[in-house]
């Protein structure tokens, strides 16, 4: 759990200000007041100190940054590829995009959220939109997370910048190498960054080695930008991410290989219409691997009641690819109104298979057992998004947005169709559905430095492929196999959010409350009619629409700079969820607070951080949840910038989990202890 304070500013502040309105910096004054922060998030930049810190933080994985974001929590199945959860929403309820591009993990067990294919060094910023209001890139009910890819900054004074960094963490013997290079010449700019990480099994706070917590990965990103004149530019992005031998201690399987590649071509016209057009393609190949696991199971024979041991191996490959395009532009149709229009289309193709090989000791391999856990399906979504911002007065701005998504699912697999005939479904090959979203947001300045933002919205979201056509997807948390429901209805949310933003030069505060009333909430419901598939499965759960559910979240963030060299940051988040039956919603984190203090003078930086999480006693027993105790951990970090042959050498030394606390968070599957005390060392040379 490494953290740095500056990254939190860099990432959170623009989001604080932009949480409601992603693209209206000209209208929303809070964005203007924070402009310098937003600008400094651009890399490479003019302010070398900020650059250094930001890059130092590239040693952190994206997960570590996400954990510090507003309303964000992480569902943890291993040391790698944590699944983002925003105010209690996750998976298909959230819209995670890369520069507005849709990308979907290829693992049926959510082992590869797309954030796992992106490295902080690939990113310029992260933009979060809460609740139904985040529908710019697709209808969803929980919010959106847009990861903006890094690009060379033409305005940079330094036309040529490169860096090489090394990092080491003792707890997992983690070795990290980072490299980046960027160059700007006349109308052309290009950049390249590469990351390699290798972690061994980490040691937890009770001095145990956690088996299957290793991972290694490489990530490459290249960008070329051509700017023929002042208002136009063309950009090509190529990204390749390759993770191997990724352990998931909380799951019965690991990942042999998870590979993603992404290509995107963008055109921008920066006149008053701010036209942006993009075409993209991405593909993911994900192969699970249980060859290192002890796969001996004891089986009670049905016929003679005797116990028998069997060996089983499973091959579980998954593929996912997305081809899409969008175009967006702004129509400032009068002095007070600005209309943003975005039209998009994407086609997502996915297939996941499972083949089980089983052997009883002393006998031949039984015939292999094959099924399509995600039958091959093509999902095509065409959407249109409109957002009008009205600048009523200095004190009042009103924003309205709406989106329509026409969703077409085409089942391409005859096999998948036949599989589902087992459950008495005769599946139609094609199913189409229209989902919509409508939001109203009002920002009112009570005082010059205090504003209130109220958002009301309604949105629907399409069920995911797993929720529609998943076939015996094992969930290691509750031990049930999940089966999709081909005719499940879209989930609906009525959303209300009230946020207060207070901004003075020395103190910036954001306090927000949000409430979602969900209908047709999608959840697995135990079906006793269908026999369990496996001897280790507890039974079968079928995705169903629960009539209603409620989610409430509150967040508080305070950034305080009493004097120039000293700053304090507080981020506190709390979520409560309840199903219509009155039961608590499963996998909801308890109150979590991060408090950090940073001292920075010249080339020297010192930072202390404390993270506290209360116990979670509101649990869903039916889902197999157990109470999670509270924990508090402390981290420390220091940094110094040396001059070496007129270039900067950043050295950083830190200790995380100073007290070597054995702890886990409520969203950690398998209640596996997180890493214990760890010494971290980073060195980065910029030239």
């Amino acid at each position, binding site marked *: 759990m490494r953290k740095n304070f500056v990254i939190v500013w860099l990432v959170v502040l623009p989001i604080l200000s932009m949480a409601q309105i992603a693209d209206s910096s000209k209208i929303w004054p809070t964005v203007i007041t924070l402009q310098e922060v937003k600008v400094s998030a651009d890399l490479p930049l003019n302010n070398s100190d900020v650059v250094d810190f930001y890059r130092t933080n590239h040693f952190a994985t994206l997960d570590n940054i996400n954990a510090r974001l507003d309303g964000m929590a992480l569902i943890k199945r291993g040391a790698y590829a944590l699944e983002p959860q925003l105010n209690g929403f996750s998976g298909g309820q959230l819209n995670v995009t890369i520069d507005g591009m849709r990308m979907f993990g290829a693992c049926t067990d959510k082992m590869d959220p797309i954030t796992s294919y992106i490295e902080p060094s690939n990113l310029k910023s992260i933009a979060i939109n809460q609740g139904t209001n985040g529908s710019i890139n697709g209808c969803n009910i929980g919010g959106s997370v847009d990861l903006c890819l890094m690009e060379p900054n033409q305005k940079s004074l330094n036309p040529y910048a490169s860096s090489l960094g090394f990092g080491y963490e003792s707890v997992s013997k983690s070795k990290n190498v980072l490299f980046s290079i960027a160059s700007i010449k006349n109308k052309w700019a290009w950049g390249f960054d590469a990351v390699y990480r290798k972690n061994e099994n980490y040691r937890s706070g009770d001095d145990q080695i956690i088996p299957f917590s290793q991972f290694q990965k490489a990530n490459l990103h290249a960008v070329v930008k051509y700017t023929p004149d002042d208002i136009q530019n063309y950009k090509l992005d190529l990204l390749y991410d390759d993770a191997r031998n990724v352990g998931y201690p909380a799951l019965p399987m690991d990942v042999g290989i998870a590979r993603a590649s992404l290509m995107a071509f963008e055109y921008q016209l920066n006149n008053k219409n701010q036209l942006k057009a993009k*075409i993209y393609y991405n593909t993911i190949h994900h192969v699970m691997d249980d060859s290192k696991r002890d796969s001996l199971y004891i*089986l*009670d*024979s*049905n*016929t003679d009641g005797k116990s028998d041991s*069997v060996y089983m191996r499973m091959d579980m490959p998954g593929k996912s690819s997305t081809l899409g*395009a969008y175009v967006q532009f702004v129509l400032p149709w009068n002095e007070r109104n600005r209309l943003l229009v975005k*039209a998009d*289309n994407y*086609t997502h193709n996915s297939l996941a298979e499972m083949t*089980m090989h*089983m052997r*009883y000791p002393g006998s031949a391999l*039984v*015939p*292999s*057992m*094959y*099924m399509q856990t995600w039958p091959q399906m093509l999902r*095509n979504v*065409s959407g249109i998004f409109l957002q009008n911002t009205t600048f009523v007065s200095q004190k009042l701005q009103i924003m309205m947005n709406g989106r329509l998504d026409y969703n*077409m699912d*085409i089942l391409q697999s005859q*096999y998948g*169709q*036949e*599989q*589902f*005939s*087992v*459950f*008495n479904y005769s599946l139609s090959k094609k199913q189409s559905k229209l989902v919509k979203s409508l939001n109203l947001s009002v920002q009112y300045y009570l005082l010059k430095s205090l504003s209130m933002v109220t958002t009301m919205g309604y949105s629907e979201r399409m069920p995911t492929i797993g929720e529609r056509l998943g*076939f*015996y997807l094992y969930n290691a948390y509750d031990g049930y196999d999940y089966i999709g429901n081909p005719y499940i209805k879209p989930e609906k949310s009525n959303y209300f959010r009230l946020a207060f933003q207070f901004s003075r030069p020395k103190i910036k505060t954001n306090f927000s409350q949000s409430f979602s009333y969900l209908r047709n909430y999608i959840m697995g419901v135990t079906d006793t*009619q*269908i*026999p*369990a*598939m*496996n*001897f280790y499965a507890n039974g079968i759960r079928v995705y169903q629409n629960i009539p209603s559910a409620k989610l409430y979240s509150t967040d508080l963030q305070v950034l305080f700079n009493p004097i120039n060299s000293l700053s304090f940051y507080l981020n506190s988040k709390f979520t409560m969820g309840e199903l219509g039956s009155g039961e608590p919603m499963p996998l909801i984190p308890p109150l979590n607070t991060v408090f950090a203090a940073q001292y920075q003078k010249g080339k020297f930086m010192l930072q202390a951080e404390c993270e506290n999480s209360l116990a979670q006693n509101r649990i869903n027993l039916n889902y197999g949840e157990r109470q999670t105790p509270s924990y508090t951990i402390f981290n420390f970090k220091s940094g110094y910038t040396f001059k070496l042959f007129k270039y900067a050498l950043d050295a950083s030394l830190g200790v995380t989990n100073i007290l070597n606390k054995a702890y886990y968070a409520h969203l950690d599957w398998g209640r596996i202890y997180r890493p214990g005390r760890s010494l971290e060392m980073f060195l980065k040379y910029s030239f």
Partner: protein
Amino acid sequence: MKHILKFIYILLISVLLISCDKNNEAPTIDPLDGYTKLKEGYALGASAKVEIWGKKNFFMGYNNLVVVLYDSLNLKEKITDAHIHFMPLMTMGMGAMAMQHTCPIENPDETDTNDVFPGAVAFVMPTTADGTWKLGIAVHNHKYDKEGEANFDITVDNPETSVLTVFTALAPDNNKLVLSILEPSKPKVGINDIEFTLHRKASMMDWPADDSYTIEITPEMPSMGHGSPNNVNPVSSGNGHYKGKVNFTMTGEWKINVLVKKDGNLISKDLYFNITL
């Protein structure tokens, strides 16, 4: 982009529709499609040449057999109006110790089906060292109103996976019964038809079909310890046939456990058939 995709979809869908249409215009049915000729000979006295076609060589189990008759005076002409009777006979042992029995049969209808005569024989045991099968075909050629018999020495294979079982019903029934599984002959993942025949041994030479029992099935994947949902127990459809539905959730080796009941009493024990997908 959208237009292109839409266009592609329309194109794809129309291609699909067109190709479906073509499939629907299937021409005349070949009644011997999938069958091979197993035996041929003459039914002496009936002026008929007899051909026996099967899906594979004779095996222990319910054999779908197709009899094709040709006019022995004009071998190009098929006989389509005849009465055919299967006469399988097993001879066990030698000389005075020899013992003979037949097995369940389903004689073809008197009227042809697409010029041929489909029927069935359920061989209850394979050919062994001291047991040999003969298959007699009695033909009543209605064209000339002549009767005759063709006799074939045949070999009945013992299939790798058993599809027929002979068992003695538990008390109070005590009958000797023959249970054959006919379907699914091409099992696939998903819902499948399942069909059994049940015959009773009335005497060595008489094995009539019996519709008075009830059959219950429970599919199971023994290696995984699970079954499948939404199966439909077979019910009698007459002539000893029982039809239902069976579901397979995945490929692999399945076991279909069968319970046979008479008047609500279970009269079978440890009956099952294996099916590998």
